């Protein structure tokens, strides 16, 4: 992972485990979704260092799989459905599952949002949707990225 000022700030803020600083990281410098992964789709050092911590991640809300849910998928670019690229809707490989505190108020798929929650790593199959995630935010909230 390229160590940028932004990721360095986020990582050090989280490492300090200071609620005030962590909140600052949440609001001031959301992590880019791609920085949670290495190029080979393994988890980045940043992701591993933030496991179990509350983090804020920049991205887009993919159209939810079901209504009245507390779950959505965060994508790094808007989840286009391209009939000439794919014969069926497919998830990109670098996504983040978001489990929310409240029922999801659906945002358009092409509006940038910041999702904040506790980062969890490792495979988990959602019995409700059947969705298998490798990396998630739990207890999450989200808002438009101004």
């Amino acid at each position: 992972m390229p160590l940028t000022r932004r990721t360095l700030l986020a990582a050090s803020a989280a490492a300090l485990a200071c609620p005030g600083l962590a909140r600052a990281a949440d609001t001031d410098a959301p992590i880019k979704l791609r920085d949670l992964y290495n190029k080979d789709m393994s988890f980045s050092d940043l992701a591993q260092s933030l496991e179990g911590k509350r983090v804020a991640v920049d991205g887009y809300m993919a159209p939810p799989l079901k209504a009245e849910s507390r779950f959505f998928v965060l994508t790094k670019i808007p989840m286009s459905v391209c009939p000439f690229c794919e014969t069926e809707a497919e998830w990109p490989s670098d996504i983040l599952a978001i489990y929310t505190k409240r029922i999801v108020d659906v945002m358009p798929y092409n509006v940038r949002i910041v999702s904040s929650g506790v980062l969890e790593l490792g495979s988990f199959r959602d019995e409700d949707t059947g969705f298998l995630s490798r990396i998630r935010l739990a207890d999450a909230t989200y808002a438009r990225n101004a």
Partner: protein
Amino acid sequence: MKKTLSLVAMLAGTSAIAQDLPQQSSTWFTDAQALLATQIARTPNTGTAKNVILLVADGNGVGTNYATRIYMGQQNGALGEEWVMPYETPDYSSALVKTYNINAQTPDSAPTAGAMNSGVKQRFNLINLGDGGIHDDCSTVAGNELTVFSEIVTGMEKSVGIVSTARITHATPAAVYAKTANRNWEDSVPEGCTAQVDIAQQLINAMEAGTIDFAMGGGGRYFLPDGTEMGGLKGRRADGMNLIEKATGMGAQFASNQGSFDGLDLGSDAPILGLYENSHMMYEADRTDEPSLAEMTKAAIEYLSKNENGYFLEIEAGRVDHANHAGNAARTVTDGVAFAEAVAMADELTDDEDTLIIVTADHEHAVAFNGYCGRGSNILGLCMGVSKTGIENNGEPNTAADGKPYTVMGYLNGSGAVLVEQADGTFSGTRPDVTQDEAIDLDYVQQALIPMSSETHSGEDVAVYAKGPWSHLFDGTVEQNYIFHVMYHAVNP
């Protein structure tokens, strides 16, 4: 001064400029005179093409190519606008190409690639069927199958290869070997359809028949039974067929990652099948553990060159198109550069005397460019002001009537639409503010006008560039199916 003028006249081989001109010492002037001399000295190659290489960047119309040219130039330390792509040098002839389909003003990649491979325009969303073929109607396949260039040159004892960064069953590579009423019948056909098999089967059948010798790209899932894993691939075929085993069973070599690609025996006569992803290969910007388009091009040429009768090779940069569909200019141009590098590789490994190289695209996209940007404005970034006295832009972003800066590139439609769906289902919105850092980010989606999940193709012209035997036949504005006719004439003048 007289001496300079006579030099100019000599360079030009003409006495058209027979007077002193104040501008004649300018490098703009002398460069143009040098090009003029080169063009005057040009002689057509009317030999026989032993080899034909058709390089197609999917979705790389004149506008998209312009973006890639500037990007590649800027990556190489130039301002960008003056950059010359490997296929834009004076040794390439060129023409504009009209890409529409029989029944579509805005084309898709299936009939466009089919036109290049069969010599006739085709109907929207189908591949290599004549006028009577109807999309999605299996009953119209029989009797409408066209003969394609790969079959013709196989009859001339030439070898045939295909390389693509898209699925090898996707429209552009499929047009080399497949005949199908629906471009999406990649791993199955509708129940009761017996006039054709799916596209993946058609590839392996062509390999068995000897009309395809080298095939490399993505799309592994369509070659393995549902759930079956092999070489990092996971199958999705409902009919349980293992087409990779079928290929290796008839002696083919198989590769599915960088290591097995590097291990291929290119000196062997056994067919080669390379499948690197379940779906498309990765964008160049994200590529890991799989070969680049230029590496696959090199391998294909090395393998095919063993045939003393020559070869036909189609190479596709398939994902220029996909990044455009996503409205993501950064991946569009990085895959465009990978394409340019593949063209340069093909040119380097072949002889202009006996190899016809054709570089083109199948269609353009709804991409557009704002103004008035100063020289050297980052093609992915903000449109900067024109410098009053210097050459490079003034570093100040131009602003629109809404007071906000805007990027050089944008799209007429797509997911970057500034009109966003509201809670009541209506669409409205204002243009987001955008900084230079945000705009040049790899994942940035350019602003667009009309809200659509996937940005669309456009019917705008593409260019064709060619060098080698009979390449001078590309001139003016031509129909896309004409490309086949030049290829056919070049191998059989």
